[in-house]
């Protein structure tokens, strides 16, 4: 059950997504440092007059002192397109007690609110299994204003975790169809081989996206002894089975493998200037959004 309520949303009003390089083509409310434009509110710098510049922005005092036509330039303000990629493969729904998908949906709702609250366009893309030969993603309509925010939970409610992870194919497919890159927020458990996610993330980077990775982990993934001691493990995506007796040594082996997988993703993101954040389902969502994400540099106070 979602914990998003009015109180929580009011806390989110103070936040914004911290953006480093991404910017859109349309004017917006986000100040783009070190970028100028010929009109605006916040003075940025001067430039030599060029034919066609608006005479209203000629700084006549400077002309008097320098005997040269100079024109004032202003800090650029652009809207930033946000793309929220949500993994809806079956692995997000297992084990059921973790409620990983519900947690990820709540995170997506919270981040989406933060985005549209800053009057930036947002599109949620569900990374799904290809259905009858169709594309391996489902995209929600672009939300441009906070009044449209209610469409986001409604769309999320239509999603259920199922099928295999088509992480690489889905990201590539969507990126090829999109002309305007922006901020790509990726919510996933990343339980795929490293080359798969590396290729996908690099593809987005290459297309000009500012990629931010949020890895969602289930509590039972971190501590599988909560789930079982011995039994037949069933991979919900490919249907394979494996008989495991969870001795201390085996548990240690699993933890080491998990840690290696986490470290590999983190290091990859660090090397490629991709923001990486990791959350667990037994974390408090409010704390995650308001503290963990700001500490990680994903969000900032307005």
């Amino acid at each position, binding site marked *: 059950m979602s914990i998003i309520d009015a109180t929580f949303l009011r806390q989110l009003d103070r936040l914004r997504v911290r953006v480093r390089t991404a910017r859109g083509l349309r004017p917006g409310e986000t100040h783009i440092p070190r970028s100028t434009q010929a009109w605006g509110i916040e003075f940025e710098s001067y430039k030599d007059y060029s034919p066609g510049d608006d005479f209203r922005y000629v700084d006549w005092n400077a002309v008097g002192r320098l005997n040269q036509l100079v024109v004032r330039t202003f800090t650029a303000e652009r809207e930033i397109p946000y793309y929220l990629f949500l993994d809806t493969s079956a*692995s*997000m729904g297992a084990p059921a007690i973790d409620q990983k998908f519900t947690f990820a949906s709540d995170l997506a709702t919270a981040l989406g609110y933060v985005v549209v609250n800053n009057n930036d366009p947002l599109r949620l893309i569900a990374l799904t299994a290809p259905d009858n030969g169709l594309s391996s993603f489902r995209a929600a309509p672009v939300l441009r204003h906070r009044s449209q925010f209610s469409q986001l939970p409604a769309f999320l409610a239509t999603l259920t975790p199922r099928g295999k992870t088509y992480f690489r194919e889905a990201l590539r497919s969507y990126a090829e169809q999109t002309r305007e890159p922006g901020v790509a927020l990726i919510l996933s458990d990343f*339980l795929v081989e490293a080359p798969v996610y590396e290729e996908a993330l690099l593809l987005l980077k290459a297309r000009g996206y500012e990629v931010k990775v949020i890895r969602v982990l*289930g509590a039972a993934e971190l501590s599988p002894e909560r789930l079982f001691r011995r*039994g037949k493990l069933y991979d919900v995506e490919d249907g394979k089975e494996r008989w*495991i007796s969870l001795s201390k040594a085996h548990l240690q082996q*699993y933890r080491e493998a998990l840690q290696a997988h986490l470290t590999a993703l983190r290091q990859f993101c660090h090397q490629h200037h991709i923001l990486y954040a990791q959350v667990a389902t037994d974390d408090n969502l409010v704390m995650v959004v308001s503290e963990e994400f700001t500490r990680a540099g994903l969000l900032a106070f307005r």
Partner: protein
Amino acid sequence: MGILNPAALPLLAVLGVLILIYLRERWRNRIEVPSLLLWQVVKEDKARVRRFTPSLLFLLQLLLLALLIGGVLHPFQSHIVTETRGNRHILVIDTSASMQAREGRTPRFELARSQAKEVVQSFNVLDEVMLITVSTQPQVVSGLTKDHLLILHLLETLKPVDTGTNLDLGIELALAQRDREGRPGQIYVFTDLPQSSLTLSADKLKDLAYYRVGKTDDNLGLAALHLHQNPFQSYSQAQAYVIVRNYAAHPKTGTLTVRLNEKQVFRREFTLAAREATSFSVKGFEGPGKLVAQLDTNDAFSVDNQAFAWLTELHDRRLVLVSAAKGLQEELARVSGAIPGLTLSTFTPDTFSPAEVRAQDIVLFHQFIPSATILANSLYVFPPPQNPLFPAVAEAEDVSILDWREEHEILQNLRYVDALPLKKARILAMPSWAQVLISSRTKNSEVPLAFTGEKDGHRVACLAFDLGKGNLTNSDNMTLLLLFLNTLRWLSPPDPTTPALVSTGEAFFLPPGASPDSLLLRLPQGEEQKINTDAIEIDHVGEYRLIGSRYNRTLYANLFDEQESDIGRRDDDSKPVTAKNAAVPAPQELKQAVPVEFGRMLYYGAAALLLLEWLYALWRYYRMSRA
């Protein structure tokens, strides 16, 4: 330690079922994980996972099941308890007619009762006593009880009856009761019979405390009252014989009076020498009615001084002959003409109709079997070869009679049965309801030549040989005529209103249709009692009367019992045991293992376990809710 209900042992298999359920769930259940990617490093261990390893929940369920099954098994723990137990005493008291004989002024039964009371009073308070009376049948008056006052009270209420005795059976019953449950006991017998008269083995008799009462032999009694009147004789032709016997070892004088309907018809004073008997003939009766023989004498035993009989009025009987043989018709006409009260109606098979037959008729079918059921007593003579009732198997000639039932009423007092002229006979298939009367034999089996039985509530007799061709009235064949007449007498239906003669100690069975619920029985003593069963026990000499709305009958009960009337007892083996001589063993202390069942405790344990589990689950839920 053991179990009382081993039949529930198979329930233990439920424990195995529980283990199987666990294993099946273990093997079937799969744990869903998002990916096996991270588990590839962990070595697969199928054998270990599939191995049964009990969990806490399983152990709890196993314990719960074990407790419930244990409860069903009724386990017990043996405890040794010491019990002080009294001995068992069984009193067997003879209540037959001879116990009414007086010794001086005191009846023998009173002497026996006094001795029994003394014996009971000598018992220890913990002793258990059983009381059995014996006449023709033993009867348990009181089961084993420690209430000695009750036994004394029951002894006071006992009365002797006018019947014979079967003391052997009573002692057998007492022995069986004594040996029950393996506890020692003592049997006390109070009777006037000498111990030598018992037919039980010496082994059974050796432990008896035998109290014999009575010495006198002073009895002059009626040994028999025979009234000879067959169904075809009138009361004026009847003849009564009264046999009187002196059982004393000295001469006795008495007066015999015979009354018919309270009117004296015979009186004779006589003297009989020691152990002698004589008979008196009385005849020329003037009417039907109740005949009472009364012996007036001064002796110690009065039960056998009176006897009853009934003179019946001659009723006309009709013999219906259905035969095509002229010779037989003529012969039977001559026979019936010689028998008073017997009329003959003759039909041929063509002219006969079942509607012609009345219930009181005797029907003779000669070489003919009617198709309809005949509601009267019937005699079938030489049935035709093909008939549904007695199918003929074969024909036989010059058959010799090899066997016959001489105790049957038809053959009683009939000599020379084997002299019957049987030139030609038919071998008939005997029906299941019939019994052989006269038979021959072939190499393989018995061949019935005459048989009798009862079918549809009527008597049926069948002769497989022919009566015709002048045999019946031939003076050379008297046996055949007597057999025929005896058969007619046996087939004559009794008059249901005629009083019945019974012997004391026997039971009179009510006829079908006489509902005992609506009947009252008036005893010879004048008391009336309701009847609950179809059999009426006849215990006293005299006149019983059954009074009902639809059924009334008078019964005359006589006692003609040599053993009871011969009240004298020789002293050669009589060494009456006194109460002092009879060793009364002291109460015994017994140590025995008493099983104490604790199956119920296991049920309580299971309930407590369930309660604890429930409380634990509640506590956990409460904790989680708070967390």
